[in-house]
């Protein structure tokens, strides 16, 4: 029977998110569809599937994105759904461990993609907060002040995410000096 859950994860919590999805799979709830902050689960045998989440290079609906999904499918990886460029994938646990990026180079490339996604969002929010607060101070508008503060809060959260992922990138780069 299909069950719907609402849950919120920050972008930098993608590892926590996939741990939660895999914990659900271990209990017999297999993710079968996703939406923004919404997860649909179907009954599966406990531990039948291992799940993975990745920020793909291309939109799943684009030609390149579809090519990637077809390739994964050939390798026994099933596409479950996507939220923008984030794709949710699963593989039968019996087919062995499920890793998409085993080597440091492709792990680094994945983290860099996430940072490149976040940076424009951060700068856009900083710029919007400047415009709103500037307008609020000149025209004593409470509405603009509120929106400006929200923008500032958003840019701080995204900035925090960028720093967290930046730390991970630095750690992997150090590792990369020693081995692949």
């Amino acid at each position, binding site marked *: 029977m299909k069950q719907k859950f609402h849950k919120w994860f920050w972008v930098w919590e993608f590892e926590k998110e996939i741990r939660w999805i895999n914990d659900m799979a271990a209990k017999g709830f297999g993710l079968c569809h996703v939406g923004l902050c919404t997860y649909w689960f179907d009954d599966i045998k406990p531990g039948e599937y291992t799940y993975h989440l990745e920020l793909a290079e291309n939109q799943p609906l684009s030609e390149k994105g579809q090519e990637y999904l077809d390739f994964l499918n050939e390798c026994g990886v099933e596409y479950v759904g996507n939220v923008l460029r984030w794709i949710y994938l699963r593989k039968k646990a019996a087919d062995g461990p499920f890793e998409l990026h*085993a080597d440091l180079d492709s792990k680094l490339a994945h983290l860099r993609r996430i940072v490149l996604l976040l940076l424009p969002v951060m700068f856009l929010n900083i710029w919007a907060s400047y415009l709103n607060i500037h307008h609020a101070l000149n025209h004593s508008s409470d509405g603009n002040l509120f929106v400006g503060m929200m923008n500032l809060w958003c840019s701080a959260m995204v900035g925090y995410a960028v720093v967290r992922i930046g730390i991970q990138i630095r750690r992997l780069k150090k590792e990369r000096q020693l081995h692949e």
Partner: protein
Amino acid sequence: MNIGNSALTEAVYYILLSLLEPRHGYGIMQFTEQLSGGRVRLAAGTLYGAINTMLEKGWIEACGTEPNTRKKEYVITQTGTAVLLGEIARLEELARNGRQLIEQVIRY
């Protein structure tokens, strides 16, 4: 860039070896695992990226699809073979130097 001097990643090395015969993606994964006695398991995402980069560089080329499954197959090119031979020579040098020096040190 002098391709003869830079090391290949383990994944790229095994992909090139696998493609001495035409193979599709999953075939490359299986062959690599078998050849390395289960030690090297190529991750699907890494494999996809490596195949595309090697296609761009002309180290491998697409050679049609497998008749039954319609999976895309790839095979190594002359350039790819030259890269592979260069890498084997480099690996041999590493192993030779390592073995010689270790033997010398242990002997004295």
